């Protein structure tokens, strides 16, 4: 019977699971030795290359690795990979994603669930804050929906907030087209691109927990990537490293909502190091969740106000696309349109609505009730938000 992972893959995967072995040390190890020898070196059975020897001298690394590099570890990794059908690809192998080959810091070992061919499509990274506004979430999923329909793959980190909503939009596009195909029994116009997820923890360690379904769906339709060994916990240091892969996989990086600091800005820095185009969705200056993106626009990033801006950045011709977006919501009366125009931007409380519009409270209640019924505003835990996109 053919083994699930070949010896090289399994050994490399086990090396990844050693303590205190970051992507840098792993790369060094695998640069000077093939996986089997590297394992032997770690176990002290083979003579290390002088660079590797110097590395292993560092603060007792060699001893720590030797203690951990056991047959048990290999078996554990194998069991985990088998259980979650996690595959491994090594730097330099033919199956290794070509877009990572020439990166500044390519991961030496890459774990994946699903089909790596998803990376062959045009790729847009979509990132943003975890505490997004409803408006930001809707816009992210809307963009992802249309990009997927246009054959552009969405790369994102499966974190809470914008990340998750971008992928939800992409999955919705796949699902919708699929059901239409079944209904009409004819293929859809244009080719859809499956989503790509890049996560920080091991592929069998779902984080955040509530995204279990989303992880599974992304792995089933597209591909889920990680450079952490199976079972690795989502420790804080893994996220900036994940962000570097996310940036490296993107041809264009779109920041939907971000504060002036945070993971999204780290990804932006990584993208700028790699000369990758960064686009930002501008927001109201009042909206705290848009401070970062507005800052990016101010620094010269091109703003995104619709899917066309991204397609243009990718150099794609969108003139014949049949995805003209259509707002299904009823048109607003002049009075309501005025209210929406006054309140668009940041989330607002009922208090702010009354003060800013000058409408008496009872009338304000009825206006908001009407706008909510029509889908122009939403209420989350007492905060109202105008939704600009249908």
């Amino acid at each position, binding site marked *: 019977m053919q083994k699930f992972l070949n010896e090289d893959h399994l050994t490399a995967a086990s090396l990844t699971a050693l303590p205190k072995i970051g992507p840098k040390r792993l790369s060094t190890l695998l640069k000077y030795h093939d996986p089997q020898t590297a394992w032997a070196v770690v176990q002290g059975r083979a003579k290390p290359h002088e660079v590797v020897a110097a590395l292993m001298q560092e603060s007792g690394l060699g001893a720590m690795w030797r203690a951990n590099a056991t047959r048990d570890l290999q078996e554990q990794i194998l069991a985990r990979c088998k259980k979650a059908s996690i595959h491994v690809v090594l730097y330099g192998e033919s199956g290794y994603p070509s877009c990572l080959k020439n990166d500044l810091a390519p991961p030496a070992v890459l774990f994946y669930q699903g089909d790596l061919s998803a990376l062959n499509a045009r790729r847009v990274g979509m990132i943003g804050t975890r505490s997004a506004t409803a408006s930001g979430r809707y816009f992210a999923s809307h963009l992802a*929906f249309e990009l997927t329909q246009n054959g552009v793959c969405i790369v994102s980190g499966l974190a809470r907030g914008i990340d998750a909503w971008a992928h939800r939009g992409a999955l919705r596009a796949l699902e919708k087209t699929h059901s239409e195909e079944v209904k009409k029994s004819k293929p859809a116009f244009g080719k859809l691109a499956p989503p790509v997820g890049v996560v920080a923890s091991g592929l069998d360690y779902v984080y955040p927990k509530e995204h279990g379904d989303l992880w599974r769906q992304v792995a089933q339709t597209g591909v889920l990537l990680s450079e952490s060994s199976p079972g690795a916990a989502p420790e804080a240091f893994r996220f900036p490293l994940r962000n570097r892969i996310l940036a490296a996989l993107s041809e264009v990086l779109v920041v939907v909502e971000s504060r002036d600091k945070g993971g999204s800005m780290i990804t932006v820095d990584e993208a700028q190091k790699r000369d990758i185009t960064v686009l930002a969705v501008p927001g109201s200056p009042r909206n705290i969740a848009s401070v970062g993106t507005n800052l990016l626009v101010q620094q010269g990033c091109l703003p995104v106000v619709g899917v066309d801006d991204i397609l243009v950045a990718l150099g794609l011709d969108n003139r014949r696309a049949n995805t003209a977006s259509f707002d299904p919501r009823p048109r607003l009366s002049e009075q309501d349109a005025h209210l929406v125009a006054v309140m668009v931007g940041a989330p607002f409380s009922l208090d702010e609505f009354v003060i800013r519009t000058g409408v008496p409270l009872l009338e304000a209640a009825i206006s908001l009730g009407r706008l909510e019924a029509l889908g122009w505003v939403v209420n989350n835990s007492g905060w109202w938000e105008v939704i600009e996109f249908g």
Partner: protein
Amino acid sequence: MFASVRSATLLGVRGSRVDVEVHAGIGLPGFTVVGQPDEVCRESRDRVRAALLSAGLPWPTRRVTVNLAPTGDRKSGACLDLAIAIGLLAAQEIVSVDVLSEFAFVAELGLDGSLRPLRGATPLVLALTDRTTIVAPGNFVEARAATPSNVFCAQNLFDVVECLAGRADWQREVRDATANSNTERAGVLDMADVQGQPVARRALEIAAAGAHHLLLVGPPGAGKTMLAERLVGLLPPLTDQEAIATTMVHSSVHLESPNAGLIRHAPYRAPHHSSSMVSMVGGGTALMRPGEISLASNGVLFLDELGEFAPSVLDALRQPLEQGIVRLARARTSVVMPAKFLLVAATNPCPCGEGSPGACTCDDAARARYLRRFSGPLLDRFDLRVAVSRPKTDELVSPQRGESTADVAERVAAARELAHFRSGCANSALSREQLDLVAPLSRSAEKRLRRELENGRLTGRGYHRVRRVARTVADLDGAPDVVNDEHLNLALMMRVDLASGLRARELQF
């Protein structure tokens, strides 16, 4: 010789009659108290002895038995001191046994023979209305306010004996002229101090008018406490019945009620979130001390930082909230105390306090954990759940003052009167049958409510609560008949679903 003297002891917020029977007979000189006295009660032997000797009255040199009837109940406190002393004197024939049947005595004795005030004077006197009750000077004003006619007072034990013998006259009149005039409130906080915040202001008005429990949700510095403190000023003065009930509760905890007369305005209680279960619902000692919920009866109970209270304490509030009373049962006794309060609570929306999407730095799990501190059944009992936002700088520095408490209270009083005239209770207490009768919905309002029910944002219980609030909103708006769309919409908007931001929604496209 035998004598029986009437007195009373305190249990919960009520007085219960006690007959102090004294028997002095032949035998070795001695003194025993029977009939379940507690420690303080037993100690009265030494107080009474010293008081008698100080007053120049004799201590019996016979075998004395004091029985506290009914013997089945436990007696607590020093309120029987005077009755025991009088009983001893009657048993020695220094006081005539015949006159005692007209009198009752409630006072503690000092060692010098002076009469000392007790807590719970109001309930004690109210338990003895069929007799002329003698109280200490310190309790006289309060006792007179409770039952004006047959309460007398004396300075010390010697005076009591003189008066009983007819050689002197009781003090019958209250000398302090300010005593009974405490209907106006001291230090009521004015709504005019609240800048901006139209929604919270209206929420207070609705809460006061319809007796709807109110939850204020907002970031630190939004003025939640300030708002809650002002709610009590909007409530109408207490009726005579309510005033007596409230005074009874406060009297049984404090030595003296404020201004020493009946409490005429709604009380405001704001216990700290470290409060124990007993301090909140009552009990504790054999006296069954009333808790904060009873002290807040007919007034406002404000729980700041609701999430910090022990969950067991919060859940203990549920039954009193429904029934308006708290029934405490212990092995020896059970008492019923009033607990008809208006519950106002304040909480932050999430651990970081900001709440607004985008500004909040908490992740969903932390927010979900925070919200789990409030049990669903408790949250459900707040008819009004209002998001309060921090006032903007412009509003804070604005010279324009808000509407004053007096103006708002006028509208509240009118709405309350209307509700009582229409259905005999506050709007929050309307039954489901009454709702259809007194709060019919307009066509559009019914449609709106149906939509809320269909998309699952309103539960069956919430449905009736929203309709009650809408009734109050309409009353305040001067629409006494049909509940309109705008009233219903406001009622719905003042019922914030704290967890709604955590739920994922279906994509629309």
